[in-house]
């Protein structure tokens, strides 16, 4: 690729990243799909087309297709209609893929994040560590359900598996 062509590709990739940052998670609409860690790559292939790699959080997450459609729509609206969407399965998603800003927004929204597999999170309301797990599963495939013993409030947690 010539230098000007490479520059043009880089500019276009940057526009795509910014567009993707406007697409919110359909079930937890405080984080965008980049912060959620489901966008794996934006890269220009040999034929000059840009490929966007998306990964599901869980194999059966019903939001996967909604996210794909929302990404496609956002790219179309931005005039970026020559982009290939592809699915990436490995490395598999886990809560470790959440970005720092994503984590902060989730916690502000009231969703905790398990620090490590099987390790209890802090209560997103009162920061107490005195919490108990109510269920391994929550309102979406990526979450488990906890309760704070200090402030007595139940809360969702992004699980780490």
């Amino acid at each position: 690729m010539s230098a000007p062509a490479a520059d043009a590709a880089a500019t276009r990739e940057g526009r795509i990243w910014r567009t993707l940052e406007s697409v919110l998670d359909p079930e937890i609409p405080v984080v965008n799909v980049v912060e959620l860690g489901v966008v794996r790559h934006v890269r220009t292939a040999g034929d000059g087309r840009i490929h966007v790699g998306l990964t599901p959080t869980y194999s059966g997450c019903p939001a996967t297709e909604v996210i794909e459609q929302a990404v496609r729509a956002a790219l179309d609206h931005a005039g970026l209609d020559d982009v290939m969407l592809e699915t990436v399965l490995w490395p598999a998603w886990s809560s470790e893929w959440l970005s720092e800003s994503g984590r902060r927004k989730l916690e502000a929204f009231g969703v905790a994040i398990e620090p490590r597999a099987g390790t209890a999170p802090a209560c997103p309301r009162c920061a107490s560590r005195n919490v108990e797990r109510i269920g391994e599963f929550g309102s979406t495939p990526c979450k488990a359900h906890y309760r704070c013993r200090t402030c007595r409030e139940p809360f969702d947690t992004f699980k780490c598996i």
Partner: protein
Amino acid sequence: MSTAIAAERPQATVEERFEYTLRLADTSLVAGQRLAEWLGHGPALEEDLALGNIALDLIGQARLLLALAGRIEGRGRDEDALAFWRDAGQFRNVSLAEQPNGDFGQTIVRQCLLDAWQLETYASLAGSLDAELADIAKKAAKECRYHWRYSSGWLVRLGDGTEESHRRIGAAMQDLWRFTDELLTPDGLDARMAECGIGPPPAAVRERWEQRVAGVLEEAKLPLPARPHYPWHGKRGVHTESLGHLLATMQHLPRTYPGVSW
């Protein structure tokens, strides 16, 4: 891998790879459809959510695997065509997966025995020479490990619970144990896929499964059932009566309104 080793390894045919991928796919699909029957009927809201979420994972795995099977077959069938337009005799799931839900304890026993098998099978398949299958398996293994944590946790609570829960879950274990032989005893295709480096070595899966299940049974204060002898042939398409009823429910809508979408 050196070319010398590659040359020695037998190559699986398209038919063999298709059949084998269907075994994995159909087991996840049928088990997921069974669990979905619990929606709205769980003994508590948390369990309703849990069973529904496990069902979702399993159906998600099935979609990925059925799509892969369709690409291997190369006749233009996608995951929907394979899920909705095959009859019971063309399904390749293990017989355990199609057994009715019964009470919550029976579902937990079925799920526990199946989770242990799926977990060990997928973990082993992470090293498959079929790179697409390996990627699906690595993700699925993580999910199944989490499912196992749930089902084995309940097995212990019910087995080591009240007299009534111990009696009922023990009876469910005795009843469903006869389907485990099919999980662990390889037939010609299982052995062939292992030879070709696509499927896991059956002896290793068996050993890890037995260890895992024996451990949780002990914790649950349940006796290890005697080894079963009756061979089931779900993975060759010979099913118990239950599968037809399950498929009738699952396939009714797309067959009545072909091409229908939300």
